[in-house]
């Protein structure tokens, strides 16, 4: 049995190395929710499901299994905040639990890397699923201290829900988990055209062909711009990077004038739980540096008065 109310916190690459504010916010949120987050010493890249799986699927599984072993040794489930890390770790974890041949093969190769053996004792969780289902909109109401009165364009990304047969979270064609959660934080989710398509960064495309990646992203931004949200809300630091650098690219190269703040679900939740705006870290980001969350009193307090 894994420890309750404890997670091995898997950092990945983009969160600690590009958007540390998301890391700060996630730690803040989980602590407020009464969870303990354990460091995963010597964890590495998940490795990314788009690029590294493309080069060598076996080595991709071995490197992922190494990360899983670190959490197994801590005897806790893994928490990730990134669709890519979730995609890799959840998929490899599930696959190796089910496929004995591959488990033996991967364990053989793992011995070459270090003192690791995949046993299959833990699960991998994504923060959006922990917040959306385990805590839930019903539970978060009691913990937050303020709501944000804003309209958000929600971007799910791809690997949180898909492939649905492996993730088993909810339908990928019409998901509502994030929208329902945001409602509890006071945020209205605005629908926009082709909301569930890819941001264009995944699959190694951002590295392989920046042009193709930006063309896909340009269409995404056009659709978002039509509904004029206050900010873009994502659940993945890689989509986060694409929305940040992508808007910058479109402004500089395609005659656009976008300035939508890009906010991760952890950052928004932490703010609603009382973390200072400066730790949300918008000042470090390229877009919407001066955006201030529109604050409004909580209903509960109004009732008391």
């Amino acid at each position, binding site marked *: 049995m894994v420890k309750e109310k404890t997670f091995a916190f898997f950092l990945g690459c983009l969160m600690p190395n590009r958007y540390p504010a998301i*890391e700060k916010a996630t730690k803040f949120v989980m602590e407020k929710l009464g969870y303990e987050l354990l460091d995963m010493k010597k964890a590495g890249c998940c490795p*990314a499901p788009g*690029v590294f799986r493309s080069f060598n699927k076996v080595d991709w599984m071995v490197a992922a299994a190494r990360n899983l072993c670190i959490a197994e040794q801590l005897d806790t489930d893994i928490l990730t905040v990134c669709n890519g890390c979730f995609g890799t770790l959840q998929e490899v974890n599930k696959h190796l639990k089910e496929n004995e041949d591959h488990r033996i093969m991967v364990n053989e190769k793992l011995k070459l890397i270090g003192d690791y053996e995949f046993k299959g004792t833990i699960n991998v969780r994504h923060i959006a699923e922990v917040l959306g289902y385990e805590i839930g909109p019903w539970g978060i109401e009691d913990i937050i201290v303020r709501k944000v009165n804003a309209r958000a364009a929600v971007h799910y990304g791809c690997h949180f829900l898909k492939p649905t047969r492996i993730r088993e979270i909810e339908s990928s064609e019409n998901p509502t988990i994030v929208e329902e959660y945001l409602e509890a934080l006071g945020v209205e989710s605005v629908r926009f055209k082709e909301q569930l398509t890819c941001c264009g960064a995944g699959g190694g495309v951002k590295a392989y062909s920046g042009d193709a990646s930006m063309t896909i992203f340009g269409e995404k931004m056009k659709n978002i711009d039509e509904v004029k949200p206050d900010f873009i809300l994502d659940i993945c630091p890689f989509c986060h990077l694409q929305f940040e650098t992508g808007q910058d690219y479109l402004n500089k190269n395609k005659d656009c004038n976008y300035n939508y703040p890009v906010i991760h679900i952890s950052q928004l939740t932490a703010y609603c739980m009382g973390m200072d705006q400066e730790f949300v870290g918008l000042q470090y980001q390229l877009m919407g540096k001066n955006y201030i969350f529109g604050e409004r009193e909580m209903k509960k307090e109004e009732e008391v008065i």
Partner: protein
Amino acid sequence: MSDVKEQHREYKTDEDFDEDFFKNIERKSNIWKCIQCGTCTASCESGRWTALKTRSIVRKVVLGDVSVLDDPDIWLCTTCYQCYERCPRDVRPTDVIMELRNYATKRGNISPNHRAVVGFLKTTGHAVPINDEVKKRRVELGLEELPPTLYKFKQEGDDNDLKNFEKYLFALPPIKEEEDKE
């Protein structure tokens, strides 16, 4: 379809036809079930803007056409899994493309940018390594300057795991010499 058949024959006599390639992909996916309905291409976000045509890629695999491994289009899939979700025959085209990329990599078809990413993983343990500006931000936010990942332990002199990454994982074939393309 007649020209497709013709191509089929052509490839069968081509010395480049690789039976192992075909059998392997067949074992790892459901390509035989493909009825060429085109749901994959119609669902493809990348294909809307690029030359990526998932349906014809799957067709080429079924025909054992190894030229698909040199096709740059297989690298334009963003792995969004929309085709995978919608395929009525459960062909799992995303998995097929992943297998193709594995084969293409073995043949040395890797873009320089992708090589660089592999290099980052082998030297720092991250696909995206940290930089000085982010280190400063981390301190400002009250986080440790370096996250407790492989890179930090490398700085502290313990980089056994990283050395083993370098040695045993993601060995890439040497860079192809420029072929004369007439």
